[in-house]
Each structure stands twice: as structure tokens, then as C-alpha cells.
């Protein structure tokens, strides 16, 4: 039997994974949710036909979106996570005993429910006592927050569909307002490679540059995402992602990771020339 999951990465490029069986398929108020088992990538979650995570490579994304800001900011206590219904970011955050509060805002309760049931690898820390889950529109939630978080992690879907509002100027501005004076915002920043993704990536960067005094982009290699080359945004009011990296402090924590190291942290901010150019194009006015 040939049973394949395919996702179009562009109108002319397709990415396929052989599927063993489908475990779940459902339609929430916002999107279609599917879970499959595959021989190569293990279990994987799909929203509206777009691959969100696989058991095999999710560690890369979740480590990179979490540990980079935490190795920079000296005292993260209050964290807001937008999206992240699969629990992967929460899992990484709960490894830090000095984090006191984690507010998670997910728009779709069904995503959380499905991940709790089928993806314990990422979801098993969602019941940590420091975690409060709010089922709300991220844009709306952050609007009423003022000066109350050290770190905001924006673990969004793509800039079309339900996640669209999380790529807007108003959202980044609201995040700025929700952070303390030395706060950091890290966001899923799309891929710079295929044309359409690159435009979304550039637009997001432009809007963040307009909203934060420090705005840098870093990269990771994620095999199941379009082109495999993925970016994250590091936006900050005070701390510089490289100058303020405290590798001794972070390494003293003794956290073992599969992808992140403080050495890689430094390298991740050195992006390819074409990406630098793409980003610079929207920076010069500011």
C-alpha cells in the first residue's frame, strides 16, 4: 500500500512523507486537524494541510525558539507564549526552575486536546502548575497586557489563516507594550527561501524593526519545513542577542539539548548573504 502525506511548499514543489496510518482527523471551528504516524518522522501533526511538527524533528524548533532568549535574558520569571498548542515550547520552558509563571494563549482548544491525546512527547508538560492556558485570540489577549512579561514567545502558524493577526504591526506593538522594560520577544519567522515565504518573512521583519529597538534574525535547519531553512526573530528592548549572551550562566544550568548549544547560538545569528540582503532592504529607514 502506498499512503503518502503531501504538502505543497510552492505551487511547483511538493514535500511528501510516507504515512503508516492516520490517527485523527477533525474540524475545529477554525481549522482542520490531522494526526498521522509515519515510518520516517514518527507521529506528526497537520493543520489545514500544513505540517506543524513531527516527533523526529520538533526538538530543533522548540529548542531554538526557547533557549536562545533564555540564554540572553538574565532573569526570566514571567513568560507569555502565544500559540504553542502542541506544548513543545512549554516543555522546554518548564526545564527552567526560576521561571515562575507561563501564560499560554492558544486560539484553538481542539489543538490542545488532540495533542494531549496523540502527541504526549510535546504535550506532557502542559499540566505543570506554573502553566495557565487561555483559549483566546493572541492579538486580543496581548492587547490588554501592560508591562507584565519578561519574555514573549510567538509560536504561530503561517501568516495566513487563523495565525494572520500574529504577523501584524499592531500585534508586535502590543507585545512591546506587554513586556517589561528589558523584555524580549521571539517569534517564528518563516523561511527566506521560496519567494512567497520570503515576502512574508521580510514583511514580518519590517514590522518588528518598526516596533522594537533591537531586532535580529537567527536560523535553524528544520527538515520538514519548506526549504528546511527556517528563521526566528529576536526582538528586544534592551538585551542584545550576542553581546548579552551569558554562555557560562546558561551552561551551568546543565540542560542537555539535541540541537541548541551556546556555540550554535552565536553561529545562528550569522545568516546567509541573500537573507541579510532581504532583511536589510526593510531596515534602512529606521
Amino acid at each position, binding site marked *: 500500500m502506498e499512503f503518502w502525506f503531501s504538502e505543497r511548499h510552492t505551487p511547483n514543489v511538493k514535500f511528501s512523507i510516507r504515512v503508516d496510518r492516520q490517527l485523527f482527523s477533525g474540524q475545529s471551528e477554525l481549522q482542520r486537524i490531522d494526526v498521522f504516524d509515519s515510518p520516517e518522522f514518527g507521529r506528526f501533526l497537520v493543520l489545514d494541510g500544513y505540517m506543524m511538527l513531527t516527533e523526529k524533528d520538533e526538538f530543533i524548533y522548540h529548542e531554538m525558539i526557547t533557549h536562545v532568549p533564555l540564554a540572553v535574558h538574565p532573569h526570566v520569571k514571567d513568560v507569555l507564549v502565544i500559540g504553542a498548542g502542541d506544548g513543545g515550547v512549554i516543555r522546554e520552558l518548564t526545564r527552567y526552575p526560576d521561571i515562575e509563571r507561563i501564560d499560554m494563549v492558544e486560539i484553538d482548544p481542539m489543538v490542545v486536546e488532540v495533542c494531549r491525546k496523540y502527541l504526549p512527547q510535546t504535550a506532557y508538560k502542559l499540566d505543570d502548575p506554573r502553566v495557565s492556558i487561555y483559549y483566546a*485570540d493572541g*492579538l*486580543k489577549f496581548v*492587547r490588554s497586557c501592560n508591562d507584565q512579561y519578561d519574555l514573549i514567545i510567538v509560536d504561530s502558524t503561517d501568516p495566513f489563516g*487563523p495565525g*494572520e*493577526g500574529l504577523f*501584524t*504591526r*499592531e*500585534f508586535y*506593538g*502590543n507585545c512591546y*507594550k506587554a513586556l517589561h522594560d528589558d523584555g524580549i520577544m521571539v517569534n517564528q519567522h518563516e523561511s527566506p527561501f521560496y519567494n512567497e515565504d520570503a515576502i512574508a518573512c521580510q514583511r514580518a521583519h519590517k514590522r518588528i524593526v*518598526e516596533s522594537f529597538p533591537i531586532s535580529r534574525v537567527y536560523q535553524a535547519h528544520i527538515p520538514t519545513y519548506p526549504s528546511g531553512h527556517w528563521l526566528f526573530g529576536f526582538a528586544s528592548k534592551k538585551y542584545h542577542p550576542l553581546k548579552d549572551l551569558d554562555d557560562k550562566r546558561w551552561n551551568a544550568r546543565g540542560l542537555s539539548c539535541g540541537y541548541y548549544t551556546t556555540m550554535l547560538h552565536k553561529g545562528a545569528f550569522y545568516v546567509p548573504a541573500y537573507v541579510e540582503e532581504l532583511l536589510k532592504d526593510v531596515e534602512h529607514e529606521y
Partner: protein
Amino acid sequence: MSQLSQKRAPIYEALEEFKKMRVVPFDVPGHKRGRGNPELAELLGEKCVSMDVNSMKPLDNLCHPVSVIRDAERLAAEAFHAAHAFLMVGGTTSAVQSMILSVVKRGEKIILPRNVHRSVMGAMVLCGAVPVYVNPECDARLGIPLGMSVSAVEEAIRKNPDAKAVLVNNPTYYGICSDIKRITQLAHQNGMLCLADEAHGTHFYFGEGLPLSAMDAGADMAAVSMHKSGGSLTQSSLLLIGPAMQEGHVRQIINLTQTTSGSYLLLSSLDISRRNLALRGKETFEKVKELAEYARGEINAIGGYYAFSRELVNGDSIFDFDVTKLSVNTLDIGLAGIEVYDLLRDEYDIQIEFGDLGNILAYVSIGDRMREIERLVSALSEIRRRFAKSGADLMEQEYIDPEVAVSPQEAFYAETESLPIEETAGRICSEFVMCYPPGIPILAPGERITRPILDYIAYAKEKGCSMTGPEDPGIERLNVLKGD
């Protein structure tokens, strides 16, 4: 054809039928189902260009409808509780103008509020009627023109018993309604007709808990912008008439200025939209109301903004308020409405309907979802955080009572001279000056130019309002009547 019901869409059905016949076109339009204009076909889609066809027997003729267009008009009339409905393809401007041309002739008077749309003034230039303006009261805090009070209409009727008709905005651009039922009764008691500009009131015919529609108030004619809240294509509209009007006469008037090549894209969009409204309008507008109410609550919670609503209702000049209109006063954050309008577009990629000196209007409709509402609210919250100022230097928008020196037609066609705008105080203007949107004239042909009017024009220009009308696009000069 089988029995007519609101579930039918006769023009749409005829087009579908026509497509199946695969008729070879040796008639206009010359693009021949898009084959002659591949770029256009690519842009609009093959289906769209293949429906852009000419009047012909199976598709009826808008100038003299006898089959499917006639049926579509009958269904529209039924849906809108009218004696007859005319499908219009020249925008609601054409519906308003046909309405006025149907009831007043050269030298005859028509009673109307000053905050009428420019199309009303245009109609008077065309037919030579003389406007009798009723002062729409002005809300001092919001700086917006309101509805006509019944006593002001009574007074105008008493002073002008020879007037032929009264025109009512139902509602205004901002969603404010006059007591149209009482005004219609007054007009009828005095042998006058009552007309309604319902460019912003299509949904009144279908939603619940919304202001009274013109046809239900007993008015004689109404121009309804189906393309606004009704969901049809831009430029499509309806003209409704009550039982006192003669259908044939109104059709003749419409045919004076309306195209003989009515677009089937527009006509079918009217037909389908009417069907949607008749079948699902009630639920649709319930949803629109909820979205607007939610947005109002959230915007008022930001602080500084005032998203106004039914609390303004005073039983007279604000007889009722259309809660689907999301009008927001911005003066307390120290920004003019037009400034907020520009910031929303330039900084946040959000295009709203209009900004005037003190207010913005975000158009909420059938096509909106909660996520867009959240973006709008969040952007307004950000604008306050980033740009709010103390509001001391903002001028309020005020009603300036116009002095009609000669009829609009006489002034429009008179011998004129061009003067620098600063030197025109005291002279009679021969052209329109409008702030667009909302397209309500500051000056109309035949009106005397005064100092306060010139100050207002200068201020609106400075604030970045888009000013239109005069021959000189920069509005540095105005045309005035020679030797007055």
C-alpha cells in the same frame, strides 16, 4: 418559468442557461468572452469575462425589461416591500438622481437636509430644481451633522408650501436616522412626496432591531446601495418606488441617463444578493450587529476613543441609530479622524471607510470575521499608545448654514470668473467643494462663499482631507459668478 419565489435568481439562472447554449457571438462586447483580451481574462477569470455579455432575447434588456430582468425586479420589489424595484447599474448616484428627476422640474422646490450626498446636488444642476435646506442639527461633542428634526421639516414645509418633495437620509453616513415615518406623513399631508437616500440602509429591510426602512415608513421612493451592506458588486444599486409612483414614468426618467448596455455582471450580482438577503439576511445582519457591538465595546475600553451608538438617540434629530455602523470619535486622543484613518492605512495596512475631522467610520459587513475586528481594535489601541496628543488644537466640524443665492443649475451654467480662494468671500460659488469621503458638499453651485466656509476648507486641507469638486484640483482658486 416555474413559479417565482425568493429562492430564485432569474438573471443568474438565465446566464447559466445561456452559457450552456454555447452561442457564437457576433455582437458586442468585442472581447468575445475574453478571447480578444487575454490579459483581462487572466486578471478577472474566464468565468467572469464569459458572463460579460450584451442584452439579447434570452437575457432581457434593462431599458425595457419584459422577461428575466422584469422577474428579478419583481422579486426585488417583494423583498424590499416596494411597489416596484428598478435594477440600477450606474451606482446609487444614478438611483438618487433618477429619484429626484422623477419628482421635481425646473424652478420647483425640494426640501432636504444639507448633509445630502453630492449626487443630490448633481440632480438639481441637471433638472433646475431649487433646494430648500433644513439644518441638520449638529452634535457639539462629535462634530457630526445629525438627522432632521420633525419641527424643522414642519417649518420648512410651512414656509414652502409649494415644495414638491422632502428628501431624507435614512440613515446618514454615520448611521443616524430621522423620524422618517413622521416626516413621510407630514409630506403626504401637505401634498408632497417623500424620498429617501438609503445608500447606507439596505440592511434595514432584512435585519431585526434596526431602524425603520423607507418603504415600511410609507415613503414614495428610495435609492438603496445594494453594493454597500447588501453584498453586490460595486456600482450596482436599486431604486424602489411606492404605490403612489408611476412605474412607467420613472423608467422613462432612468432611461434618460442610464446606459443601454447594462452590465450582466452587475445585474446578476444584484439578483444573487437579493436572494441571499431574502433567504439569509436576518441571520447575516444579526452577525454584523454582534461584530459591530463587540468592536464598539472593545474600542471604548481602550480609552480616549468614543465609539458611539444608541445612547445618542434623542427621539428627534437622532430618532434612531444604525448599530451596524462603527463610527468612532477620535478627538479625545488628540488626533483628527482623518489622521487616524491615514495611520491605520500607512502603519497597519487597514483601510477604513472614511475619516473626517473628528471621526472615523469602519465599515462592518457581511464579509467580516472576528479576526479582522481584532486587528482593527488592536491597531486603534496601538495608535493611541504611539501617537496620542493633547487635543487642544483641533477644530470641531460645524454646520455652516448655506445661503442659496441662485439655483444650482443657474449658477453651474452662469458666466463665471476664477479667483484665488482667499478673495472669494462674499461671492457666489459656481462649483462644488467637497470633502471626500463622505462627499457632503461644503459649497454647492449657487451658494454664497463666507469666511467660516473658507476657514473650514483651509483647515480640512491642512489635515489632509481629500478635497474635490472645483476645476482647480489644488483648490487654490474657485470659480464664482461674474459681477455679483
